[in-house]
């Protein structure tokens, strides 16, 4: 099957971000003094466990970023025609989850539809009852009898397979690491103690068990139910992860150059430059951020409506809207970091090494880039990690207000927005909201814990007795 790669704008930003992160990691690895805080981070148990959970989210997000358009089977007159729908590698991996849509709501693990329908019985009578689902538990012959047993059996198998896989993976990793560092004995001792490595391995096994459970159940049932139009909620939630990650990371990527350059310049040059930059960020930060975002998004909608010809597919359009939202969020949120950096640069410019550089008539640009920039990077890193969770939460609120992502984009905000009236139904439809909120909670909680660990490792103001425990 042939396909055409599709590179959306946000995909490009994500790959750019990935490249920057990899280059940064390589750069830091060469320099022991930069490596030190990272080693402190690697020694924090909470930090490493939350990083493991976060990397699972990131992996799903990255798989969901490799987009393509499949070729249609009927290639008329020799030319290959591609489907209008933009899919991702993730869609392929989850396979049938995407296509298994029911008629309407169904509860998690249900075999019957949520709403009653007229069913024609074989003997010609019309019965008003809950019909069987097309896909959820379709393999059961007698759901009344087999349903609970089948679910239990599948969960047990899934958890066991996950446990087996997780343990094997953990063993493999430990052996691999030991072979590389030739310290097998020490590493084996370490895994028996309460170290980050041990906690990570335990988390890995737990995650593998969870994954086994989910995979085994999602194959035969709708694990988290279906929504109003019958789409699998698990699939929608997993697809929302990418949007959350994009909002949380691309936003900081676009605002970073502004905040860095303007903040440092204001602090270093002082005088007129400082006045102008301070004026700009006071004006921007004095507008309540929701209102500024709302105003900018309203205007963006007008522009997008006006230039319908810019987009060849609706996916591109939704994607550009997402990127614009990141830009707008970035413009409204850079002021805080800018102020921090200005303060730090004001402090740094009085230090001896900067004055020495000035005495040697090193150019200002060089002082900024060689002497000041590296010394504020820890602030930047802490701010970026801290902002992430706030941005993920903000996306949901903005989508509710109606100035968030495109309604066709899968995101936690759109999920919640579509489902918020469902609590009032009788019987209640709670699973979409529950799924969206739990996914968000896990992502944001992991991000918050990770941010704390990063701050503890990088903040020079914190007193440390010896090296980290």
């Amino acid at each position, binding site marked *: 099957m042939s396909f055409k790669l599709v590179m959306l704008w946000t995909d490009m930003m994500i790959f750019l971000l990935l490249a920057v992160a990899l280059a940064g990691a390589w750069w830091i690895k060469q320099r022991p003094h930069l490596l030190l805080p990272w080693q402190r981070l690697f020694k924090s148990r909470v930090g490493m466990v939350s990083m493991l959970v976060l990397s699972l989210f990131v992996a799903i997000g990255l798989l969901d970023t490799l987009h393509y358009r499949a070729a249609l089977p009927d290639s008329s007159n020799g030319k290959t025609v591609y489907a209008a729908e933009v899919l991702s590698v993730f869609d392929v991996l989850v396979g049938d989850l995407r296509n298994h849509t029911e008629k309407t709501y169904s509860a998690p693990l249900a075999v019957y539809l949520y709403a009653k329908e007229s069913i024609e019985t074989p003997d010609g009578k019309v019965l008003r009852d809950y019909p069987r689902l097309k896909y959820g538990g379709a393999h059961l012959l007698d759901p009344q009898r087999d349903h609970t047993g089948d679910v239990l059996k599948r969960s047990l198998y899934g958890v066991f397979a996950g446990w087996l896989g997780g343990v094997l993976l953990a063993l493999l990793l430990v052996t691999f690491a030991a072979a590389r560092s030739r310290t097998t004995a020490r590493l084996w001792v370490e895994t028996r103690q309460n170290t980050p490595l041990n906690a990570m391995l335990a988390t890995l096994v737990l995650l593998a068990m969870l994954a086994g459970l989910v995979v085994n159940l999602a194959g035969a049932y709708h694990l988290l139910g279906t929504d109003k139009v019958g789409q699998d909620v698990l699939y929608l939630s997993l697809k929302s992860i990418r949007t959350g990650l994009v909002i949380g990371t691309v936003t900081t990527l676009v605002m970073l150059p502004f905040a860095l350059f303007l903040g440092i310049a204001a602090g270093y040059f002082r005088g007129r430059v400082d006045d102008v930059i301070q004026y*700009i960020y006071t004006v921007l930060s004095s*507008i309540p951020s929701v209102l500024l975002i709302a105003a900018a998004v309203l205007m963006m909608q007008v522009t997008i409506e006006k230039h319908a010809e810019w987009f060849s597919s609706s996916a591109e359009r939704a994607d550009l809207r997402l990127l614009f939202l990141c830009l707008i969020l970035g413009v409204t949120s850079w002021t805080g970091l800018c102020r921090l950096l200005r303060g730090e640069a004001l402090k740094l410019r009085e230090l001896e090494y900067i004055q020495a550089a000035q005495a040697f008539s090193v150019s200002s640009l060089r002082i900024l880039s060689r002497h000041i920039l590296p010394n504020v990077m820890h602030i930047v890193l802490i701010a970026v990690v801290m902002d992430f969770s706030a941005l993920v*939460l903000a996306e949901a609120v903005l989508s509710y*207000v109606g100035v968030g992502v495109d309604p066709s984009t899968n995101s936690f905000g759109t999920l919640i927005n579509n489902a918020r009236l469902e*609590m009032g139904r009788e019987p209640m439809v709670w699973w979409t909201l529950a799924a969206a909120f739990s996914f968000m909670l896990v992502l944001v*909680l992991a991000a*918050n814990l990770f941010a704390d660990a990063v701050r503890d490792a990088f903040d020079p103001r914190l007193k440390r007795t010896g090296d980290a425990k």
Partner: protein
Amino acid sequence: MIAYLIRRILYAIPILIGVNLLTFALFFVVNTPDDMARMQLGMKRVTPEAIDKWKQQRGYDKPLMLNAQAAGTDKLTDTIFFQKSASMFVFDFGYSDDGRSISREILTRMIPSLVIALPTFVVGLLLYISFALLMTLFRGTVLDMAGVTLCVILMSISSLFYIIGGQFMVSKLWHWVPISGYAGGADSLRFILLPVLIGVVAGIGSSSRWYRTIFLEEVGRDYVRTARAKGLSELRVLFKHVLKNAMIPILTGVVAVIPLLFMGSLLTESFFGIPGLGSYTIDAIQAQDFGVVRAMVFLGSALYILGLILTDISYTMVDPRVRLQ
């Protein structure tokens, strides 16, 4: 003091001008009034006459900055900028799309917003500070750890969840108070109870943790050690010394938001159907009423700047070392 105040207020003017120019650029230059008209009237099958009528109704049919056809001062005053943007300086916000005066609407809607926001603010502040003090008192123990963990979990939960979950539990499951709605006078108590409760709970995580950090920073200072050396009990140290000194950083955050209480909370008001400024804003955003959004942006920044000035004044009250020059 008065000279300082005057200077601060004068300093606020350029910032307000900046906000004004920014909103003007955002609403009239990035997209012309023609685009806005087309967007609101529907993209297709819209006649130029309809657009002209839409513009005329809202007074958008004038030149942007300079009216070359007019004579004398009208050259500057008979323009969109003067009539729509500059007029906001005297808090003349014009009319919303449904023909009501925005200024009057703001004045009447301010009350319900305050009725919700003020109790939330006061109760919240007291609760957060007490909780943070409690964690500081038991610092380093299991209780402190549990408190911090609770805070991190609470602040990781979406504010939408607090509202939806709270409405469901308290109103739908237990039938304690009405789900939403608002009434003036003494009857309003029934309606404001739940929004206030939810607003307070939603803020526990981040605020308590923030105050705890401030308290911990103060606890490590020398004067605290001296106070303990004098033989003061830990409780007395906390309340007489630490709390008083921690008031300065706490005030920075707190006083600045007081004027913004007028604006109400977007989410709470819209979920609970409270006719305040928050729901006014959200309705305007959803109906794409540009005039109202513009007015709220200006009002919001004016209140924010007021908050900054109040913060400076409050400094002199709690910290006699600060002198306003």
